[in-house]
């Protein structure tokens, strides 16, 4: 095992601003999966087996194996609560083999959890998603502070944002400004 130690994008920051709690979700591994030609059925079957269903547009499915998020036609982002030491992509690739193109995404993203009763108020200032009518499990690709993000609604008072790791501090800055502005 390597002695190099990973560092999360925001060093695991966790803050409460007014009624909003912002927390970097650490130890999360990500991988993108795209079905290859003539392998859609196999990928769908695997997703059903692993997550219970195949996430459709604007959807996500969760199970003990993690969460699968729809990214595009026959493309999904998988996440699992496990540290980056684990070769999640390699693991998935072994399972899907040539049925899918599998790409490690752990380092690409920062995941920030937003919780609080005024979640909808906060998101109305952040991005153009219909936060008040979204149901738990729904997801959207959107733009926050000029940054492309995924937003996955977990409950009426909790959501997770996936944003680019390199601009994680800018995203955090935008979130904290908004929380203070409510």
């Amino acid at each position, binding site marked *: 095992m390597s002695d*190099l130690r990973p560092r999360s994008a925001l060093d695991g920051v966790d803050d409460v601003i007014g009624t909003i709690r912002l927390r970097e979700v650490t130890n999360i591994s990500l991988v993108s999966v795209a079905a290859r030609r003539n392998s859609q059925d196999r990928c769908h079957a695997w997703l059903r087996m692993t997550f219970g269903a195949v996430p459709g547009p604007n959807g996500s499915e969760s199970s003990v194996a993690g969460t699968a998020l729809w990214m595009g036609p026959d493309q999904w982002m998988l996440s699992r609560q496990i540290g980056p030491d684990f070769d999640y992509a*390699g693991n998935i690739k072994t399972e899907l083999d040539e049925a899918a193109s599998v790409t490690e995404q752990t380092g690409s993203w920062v995941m920030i959890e937003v919780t609080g009763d005024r979640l909808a108020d906060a998101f109305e*200032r952040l991005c153009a998603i219909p936060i*008040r*009518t979204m149901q738990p499990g729904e997801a959207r690709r959107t733009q926050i*502070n000029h940054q492309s993000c995924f937003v996955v609604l977990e409950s009426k008072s909790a959501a997770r944002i996936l944003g680019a790791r390199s601009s994680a501090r800018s995203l955090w800055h935008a979130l904290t400004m908004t929380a203070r502005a409510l």
Partner: protein
Amino acid sequence: MSQINRLKDGQIERSETLHFYFDGKRYSGHPGDTLASALLANGVRLMGRSFKYHRPRGPFSSGSEEPNALVTLRDGARAEPNTRATTAELFDGLTARSQNHVGSLRFDMMAINDRLARFLTAGFYYKTFMWPAAFWEKLYEPLIRRSAGLGALSALDDPDAYDKGFLHCDLLVVGAGPAGLATALLAGRSGAEVILADEDFRLGGRFNAETGLLTEENGVDWAARTVAELTSMEKVRIMPRTTVIGAFDHGIFGAVERVSDHLGKTPADRPRQILWRIHSKRSILAAGATERSIAFANNDRPGIMLASALGAFANRWAVTPSRRAAIFTNNDSGHRVAADLLAKGIGIAGVIDTRDDAPVSKDFEVFADAQVLDTSGRHGLRSIKVRDGSGKLMSIECGALGVSGGWNPNVHLSCHHGGKPVWNDELSVFVPGPKLPQGMTVIGAAAGRFSTHEALASGVEGATDALGSLGLKAQAIDLPEAEDAPVEITPFWHVGGDAGRAWIDQQNDVTVKDISLAYQEGFRAVEHLKRYTTLGMATDQGKTSNVAGLAIMAEIARKEIPEVGSTVYRPPYTPVAIGAFAGRARGKDFRPTRLTPSHDWAKERGAVFVEAGNWMRAQYFPTSSETNWRQTVDREALAVRTSVGVCDVTTLGKVDVQGSDAAEFLNLVYANGVLKLRVGKTRYGIMLREDGIVMDDGTAARLAETHFVVTTTTANAVPVYRHMEFVRQCLCPAMDVQLMSTTEAWAQFTVAGPRSREVLAKIVDQDLSNGAFPFMACANVTVSGGLRARLFRISFSGELAYEIAVPTPYGDALIRRIMEAGEEFQITPYGIEALGVLRIEKGHPTGNELNGTTTALNLGLGRMVSRKKDCIGKVLSRREGLNTLDALNLIGIRPLDPETELRAGGHLMALGGTVDASHDQGYVTSACYSPNLRSHIALAYLKSGGDRLGEHLRLVSPLTRETVEVEVVSPHFVDPEGSRLRE
């Protein structure tokens, strides 16, 4: 001064007194007041000076259409010029200053302009100040600008924050007057997601301004009850102080919410205003109507205003400009205002009605078939000159005159998609035309349905229609009994005669005579009229003047009003602070910042950073003994050539290309062949645009039979990915290929220099010998005892070099580990300045050379465009014009004196002869000082450059006026054979 003109009742909170300052003088008012109403209460009618003639002006309306009562609100950096006193909500401590005067407001020295009016007619500046020409810029224009205009900006940074936001709804209702409230109530009760927005801070519209609109109860009470019910509905969002400023595509509206303007000072961290983008499935425009005026001589004195404003000030704010008022009207609403004023205890000096069948009143004198010819009163109205139906002239003393020329529906938002309003002859108004923004229905007075009954009924109709299209069933609501008076109007636009100037557009000082002049001078088309006279071009966008101007032009041209047409309605509906458009994206927050995985480490080492797109990249790493950047960069570049250096190259674009057709796909995208690239090998490649110009260069590494990693330049990471996706989805949809950006997924470092292998051998778990891992090799490896990594033996510097990548969370740890491993070789971190020096020394192109005009031939890479296969851009790269004999070639240049600096951007000319564009032979793209060559060097494009090595030329810069004699050399200054990188 006490509130001498405060009347009884009104919708103000008399229990609380607010103090405010106007032009430094202290006054008092109450919550619920606007600045205008509070000033009127205190007996102040004079609130500003006009734009051109510096005429004394007071409020002309009571709302956002106000042309005259513009003030600078607040002080210092928060000062906001041209704020309408009629919409500025009073708060304790409010400060306001009048505008556009030299000396005091009352004794404005620039009022001399009014005496010079005959020389300052419409378009005077087009005809005068013609000579001497040089005087225009330095004398005439500054003079005109100083004497004209409204408020001035503070020129200080706006200290307030502005937010942007996004809302979604089934139904957006614009306007919370009778029609809007009825619509919202029905839609809300029927379960729709409703947003009800109104620019006013008190909802209810005309219910707040007029009496007698409902027959069985007070309209104010009904409005309050309705608002209370709407407030209790979970799916209804009520947004007072919110102006819907524009209708955009797909049911999207822009709206500005004034969150804390009425609080005086914005609470810390809170926004002053929010610019909302409202996504609506359906919209209802219930924006009401704006009363129009009648033009007559000197109709702009303080105290003269729209009759509806006079009524609103009395009914809602319990104030009046004067205790004695007259009304000048051509329709029945003027009579209703007179009755309201009388009920408030204001003496009615008379109602002057242009109609010969004007209704009579037992409560006040009505002059039928009469006109107001002129007025008097220097700083405020004292009397009006009236001609009655018999032709008798009389002077009537009054301090207030309400003018009503009918009502114009507020069609603005209905026209934002290019729709034109249509003329309704029966009502003598423009009403919304058939082309409306998607999903919009117009109701109430905005649709020309003026009676309260009609407004309420149309609200129900609009809501029912919208609900039906939303798949919701409309619930029944009981509407209150309301007046249903027909529109009784005889169009009357202006009083004829030559008594004096009659103002149409009070904010831009446009008179009836100006319109006549425009006609005489041939500016007859409505858009020409607008621009020649500036009618409707002020901050109020002609809300009280446009239609009258068109009507007068029609009269002069002997046309019907519809023949004259109307000008274009554009957003925003009312002025918006620039800060609201900027939102939080200002200063350092203008755009997000991207940080490399080694950013914190580089910062610890004192790196100097530079912006590269959104990235912050280490430019160089100065030591304490270095006094200028050149010393640092020279040291870094030398270290790479003599020992080893390390540089974070994470910013280079990275795309994972996978699938059974991945090789075939890349073979099409790259100009050179990729199909036969062996697994474990990397190839340099160029991509062409469809037009044959080079798009980008980079490498393709084959990690597996069906898996490539493509690298791009930092600047082109996104464009190349987008291009590849276009090819995949649109040109080759049948190919089995999947793309995924991995730029951020991997922290990648270049370790370059003759000792680089020794450094990496301590970190990488696999054999790095030249035999096991030769030049251009690539592989999935592990580092530091098992961490997955990618290794590429590629070189931008021309030295033995590697690029090593680990998952980004390990980037910080890896750079520190590399530094530890390289300590014994004095490993040197280097930034992008040294990176640039090293690549110029090797003649490697980058963005400076790939400038969107250059071909592979220009770059000396013409042979890379394979003749054996197809590629994007291949055909057009063979265009004759791109393959001329004297085409530009990339070459190197050196000054004859090595210490003479060369500058990028300079042009190459023959040693003798003319220096101009027609003798241009090429230009320098990149230049630097080479510490290895101890000389300044540069890369340049030169006509037929490849055949001109050894030739001497002049490098000239018309900008810096520098001329340097240079020698043309190979662009490969260092190790032209390329032996070092293969060692």
